[in-house]
């Protein structure tokens, strides 16, 4: 087993676009679930809208890459509005059911052959990188050291990803430290109490839904930025992976989503390297290499269950704030 290679891969994943995408999605979900108490089980749908909005506006409508970003964010905002108006008055569990369904509807719309010219249906979309790469200020070459050696294009993606993440963190942090955030925390605990103090509860929940949705969409864009958009990514499992990352870090904190995503991805990369290597080395004789690789998803599921039961507040969270057992 080539441990050096394994660790090198894992270390490099700290800066991978996937990690940043998850961090953004988890941050958006933190706004929904951690701060507003909205049980959104369709965060994958928001990410899909971000990615597809970006790709379609470039490929079909010829927008520049930053136009695509704006379209992706706008699509998520509209989706949040449409979703929110009927459902925000529902009890939490009903919101969960509706959001799962809504995310699936979005994915199926992108999957159907009816829109194939625009969405690429099962093949997805790719080849939208021209204007993005053209805008790259970094001169061609390889930079970095050790496991973090990337070329100019890869660095451009990562820098933008970090900038987006930093901006999102700033916005969420500012909001939650303000009176607006105070109202939201109150709503999470008891809507009627906050209503009786003159606050329009529906409006706050809607604003949280839109904000979190837009941030998650940016996550979807960052994920698709270096490579391609594939409908098979935005399945319900993605939502649960994001939840795992979120809960691991601490759902009602600003930095929790970041730490959780980081650990989640590094572990994922580690396992995806270690497990097949173990099979090859004969340590896990009862599995094939492909099975070993998929084993990590099972482990994620188990980790999610254990987290929810034994440490729902995650690493950074405050136990008193977030327990599921009332």
């Amino acid at each position: 087993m080539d441990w050096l290679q394994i660790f090198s891969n894992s270390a490099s994943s700290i800066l991978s676009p996937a990690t940043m995408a998850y961090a953004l999605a988890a941050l958006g979900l933190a706004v929904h679930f951690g701060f507003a108490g909205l049980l959104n089980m369709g965060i994958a749908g928001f990410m899909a809208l971000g990615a597809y909005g970006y790709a379609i506006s470039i490929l079909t409508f010829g927008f520049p890459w930053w136009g695509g970003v704006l379209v992706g964010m706008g699509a998520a905002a509209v989706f949040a509005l449409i979703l929110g108006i009927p459902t925000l008055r529902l009890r939490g569990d009903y919101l969960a059911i509706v959001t799962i369904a809504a995310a699936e509807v979005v994915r199926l719309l992108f999957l159907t052959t009816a829109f194939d010219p625009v969405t690429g249906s099962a093949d997805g979309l790719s080849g939208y990188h021209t204007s993005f790469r053209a805008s790259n200020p970094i001169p061609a070459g390889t930079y970095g050291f050790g496991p973090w050696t990337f070329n100019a294009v890869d660095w451009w993606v990562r820098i933008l990803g970090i900038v987006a993440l930093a901006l999102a963190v700033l916005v969420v942090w500012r909001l939650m430290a303000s009176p607006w955030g105070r109202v939201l925390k109150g709503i999470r605990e008891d809507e009627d109490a906050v209503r009786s103090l003159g606050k329009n509860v529906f409006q706050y929940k809607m604003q949280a839904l839109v904000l979190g949705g837009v941030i998650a969409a940016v996550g979807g864009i960052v994920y698709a930025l270096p490579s391609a958009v594939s409908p098979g990514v935005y399945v319900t499992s993605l939502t649960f992976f994001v939840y795992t990352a979120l809960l691991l870090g601490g759902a009602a904190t600003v930095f929790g989503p970041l730490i959780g995503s980081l650990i989640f991805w590094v572990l994922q990369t580690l396992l995806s390297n270690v497990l097949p290597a173990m099979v090859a080395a004969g340590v896990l004789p009862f599995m094939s290499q492909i099975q070993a690789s998929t084993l990590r998803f099972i482990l994620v599921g188990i980790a999610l269950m254990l987290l929810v039961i034994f440490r729902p507040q995650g690493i950074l969270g405050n136990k008193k704030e977030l327990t599921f057992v009332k």
Partner: protein
Amino acid sequence: MSNNSSARRPKSKATTTASQEPKAPSAADDTHVMPSKPVERAKSTGLHIGEAAPGVAKVDPIIVADGIRRTFGGLTAVDVEHLEIPRGAITALIGPNGAGKTTLFNLLTGFDKPDAGTWIFDGTSLSGVPAFKVSRMGQVRTFQLTKALGLLTVVENMKLGAKGQKGESFWQSLIPGIWRKQDEEIEERAMELLAKFKLDAKADDFAASLSGGQRKLLEMARALMSQPQLVMLDEPMAGVNPALTQSLLDKILDLKQEGMTVLFVEHDMHMVRHIADWVVVMAEGRVVAEGDPHTVMRDPAVIDAYLGAHQELDLGVVTGRYSADAADSTTDAAASTKVKASDLEAAGMAELEDTSK
């Protein structure tokens, strides 16, 4: 019968004269006496016009309600023809369990929608106005099961109560410069109020760490942050230990002194007699009596509502468990022996048949 409350009247202050005739109140009439014992404060009188009966008009009503009906399935929870709440006074809403008091509260504050009815608060119609808007118009309420937000600190709870906060708007909250100063002012006000309620030492503790009685005080203090005109308290004494009762009573009396109107629901008769200027009695969804605390308690309709129809009977004697000479001294022993238990049962069944038709 209904008062034209849209005409702006001067706020009526408490008058200490024991006159029973209706008087037009004026600010100059404020001969409020401040005795050494803080609890013994004079009651407001002269609040009504004419005979004290259910639905009687008030000299200066802050709320005028008409034809409010609320049914749940087949059950009529509230059926109030006409009700006026006097401004600047403390009104108690009493009645046995299931009388509809909390339902009426929920209807008046927008937490529930009636099947029919209109009501006016300080000249503005509130029918169909959602709860959060009602609160902004100067009417604030507390809940039977205290809703102190445990996951926020005491001072954060208080600041949440203030109205018109710039920082609560989504976009403006992103720029602290816009709301910082206002937030500091609100915090000052909050600390002042907390000091009055003797909760200032706990300002930075999570509200969940307060005792039940302290949470009630916090809820009341928080309600005052919005500087309301009308404070509606739903069973403020429920579950509060006697040590804190006095303090809560004083706070409610303070509210009146500062010109606010108070409407509270209670079961505790001592509290009612102690601080209420006016009493509205509900039973089975209707207002059965209104009046000042002392006379209303002697109203036969009220006694019936609370203690059962036949107050003169001792059910122990009627059912044959006890002999006439062991009868409850407040009852008529002889009458009790003559009445048959089966007749009372039949009366109950008959009423059931009537109502289910």
